[in-house]
């Protein structure tokens, strides 16, 4: 529990003017009623100076109807405050420290009351669960004396955490680029071998499977030849989430910010890639470094799920830690496997991240940018920011980077459109 020294609120400042004015009028005109009014003023002035804001000794219990809810579930929070001290608190205002990532959907996270020693007060409200680990901040109690002329702030911690794991539902297939591993998978390469898509024919060699012999050609010319297909291989993909302060942007207060959308999309992409046999990793580019090396398997999926829920770099509000962009980029490059392609999730609201994307692409990690659009055009300055972002995305496309400009439609729709565009 932490206290702040009591301060004067000045609520009663100037009440003496009433007493003086009534006295000044009552004296020359000899009106007893005005003298009485002056006495009332004196009484209020004395009342304002009576007593200090008590140093409240409070205990807080906070109960959640569910401590590990699924996303979008409604969770009821019940807060009970007890006056554990020996003094009556005549004026107590309680404001609960709802985590910044949660919004109250029903009720109010505050209460105004008076508490005698040993008595308890309870209030409750409902929050809508969102992905992440949400820790409650201390409850703030504003304590005043009876007249409200003195005020003290007390903060009481109750240590409550709610953990909401993302569901990691797979979106439609994420279109990948040509950089692959030697393992078989679903990315069609330019290497001739076994697969589905026709690549070429060549002279028959002993040991070629009979199913790949071109029998039509044999019937026409009597020559044995073997059909080759594009070999399909697995890819190593790192899902890189831009979590710098500049990425925390939203078009309005009701829409999730770009980092939240990015993390949600990364979860979907992770699940989709894992189910198609690709090796997937997760990284962040922001003040809180996060790295999950590319791998496969159910255990890897569970680790990613926890990471996307708990890691501070994927928090719904920006980190206050300092960020050194060049060092972060160097560290990321050291960790990236040579054959890893990158799917970058970023709103691209500044030039710096565009430069990072260009550099990573130039280093050979074929990069795809999925960019949740946080811009709007209801004012001239916002319209200019939207135009700047459009220009940035056009520049990236012209540098050979695949860009998915993700608006309000579901990611799966945007991915399907992009796949059609890229396969032409």
């Amino acid at each position, binding site marked *: 529990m932490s206290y702040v020294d009591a301060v004067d609120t000045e609520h009663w400042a100037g009440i003496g*003017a009433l007493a*003086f004015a009534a006295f000044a009028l009552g004296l020359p005109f000899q009106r007893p009623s005005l003298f009485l009014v002056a006495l009332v003023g004196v009484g209020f002035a004395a009342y304002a100076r009576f007593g200090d804001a008590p140093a409240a000794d409070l205990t807080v219990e906070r109960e959640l109807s569910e401590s590990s809810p699924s996303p979008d579930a409604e969770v009821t929070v019940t807060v009970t405050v007890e006056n554990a001290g020996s003094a009556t608190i005549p004026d107590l205002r309680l*404001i609960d420290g709802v985590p910044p990532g949660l919004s109250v959907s029903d009720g109010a996270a505050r209460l105004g009351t008076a508490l005698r020693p040993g008595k308890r007060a309870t209030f409750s409200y409902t929050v809508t669960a*969102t992905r992440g680990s949400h820790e409650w901040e201390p409850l703030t109690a504003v304590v005043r004396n009876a007249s409200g002329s003195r005020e003290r702030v007390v903060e009481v911690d109750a240590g409550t955490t709610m953990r909401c794991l993302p569901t990691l539902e797979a979106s439609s297939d994420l279109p990948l680029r040509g950089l692959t591993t030697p393992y078989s998978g679903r990315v069609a390469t330019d290497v001739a071998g076994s697969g589905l898509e026709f690549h070429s024919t060549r002279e028959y060699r002993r040991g070629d499977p009979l199913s790949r012999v071109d029998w039509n050609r044999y019937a026409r010319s009597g020559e044995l030849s073997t059909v080759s297909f594009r070999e399909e291989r697995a890819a190593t993909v790192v899902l890189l989430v831009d979590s710098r302060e500049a990425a925390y942007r*939203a078009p309005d207060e009701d829409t999730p910010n770009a980092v939240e959308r990015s993390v949600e999309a990364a979860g979907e992409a992770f699940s989709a890639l894992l189910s198609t046999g690709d090796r997937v990793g997760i990284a962040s580019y922001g003040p809180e470094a996060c790295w999950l090396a590319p791998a496969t398997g159910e255990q890897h999926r569970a680790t990613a799920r926890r990471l996307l829920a708990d890691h501070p770099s994927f928090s719904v509000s920006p980190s206050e830690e300092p960020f050194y962009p060049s060092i972060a980029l160097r560290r990321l490059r050291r960790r990236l496997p040579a054959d890893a392609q990158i799917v970058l999730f970023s709103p691209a609201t500044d030039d710096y991240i565009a430069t990072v994307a260009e550099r990573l692409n130039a280093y050979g990690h074929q990069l795809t940018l999925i960019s949740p659009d946080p811009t709007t055009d209801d004012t001239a300055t916002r319209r*200019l920011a939207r135009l700047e972002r459009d220009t940035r995305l056009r520049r990236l496309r012209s540098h050979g980077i695949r860009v998915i400009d993700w608006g309000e439609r579901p990611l799966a729709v945007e991915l399907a459109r992009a796949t059609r565009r890229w396969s032409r």
Partner: protein
Amino acid sequence: MRRRLAAFGAVAVLVGLFVSFRQEFAGLIPATWVFVLLIAVAAGVQSVTTALSRRRTPIRETDTGDPERRYEAPTPGDDLRETLRYARRSSRRGDRPREQLRERIATVAAAAVADAEDCSESAARERLRTGEWTDDPVAAWFLSDEVRLPPAERARLLATAPFSQYEAAFARTVRVVDDLVSHGGDG
């Protein structure tokens, strides 16, 4: 001064209490009309002083914030509002906020002109300089030092936005560039 006044007040209260118990001393206090009026005037002055000091004293209370709402991220472009506010207050040439805003629009406009006209970025910059990139006189003037704003247009701008011509010109230029990006300038 305040101490003296407080001491005087304390003495007056003590004398009053004393007289209320020993009323035979009441005759020692001058009760003439002038004396009573003087005290009333002093009380009146004090009431005015107290009322004025009340007006100067801010009421303090703890700001409890809005914990019911979740973190609200800013919208891209909000950072420019402050720059625009500074730019409104200064002269058109030779000042940093205005230069900053103009350069940001010019960068976007140059890219849009280069796309629309299928020319290089430097050729697009040249068109911005000469004002050939648009038919809109305000947008052409806004992005160039060499283009003059016709008096009729200046008067129109003044009439539409008497208190913030700079902001109106800024908004109009952004709209023209947006048009160029969306419709290649035909819309």
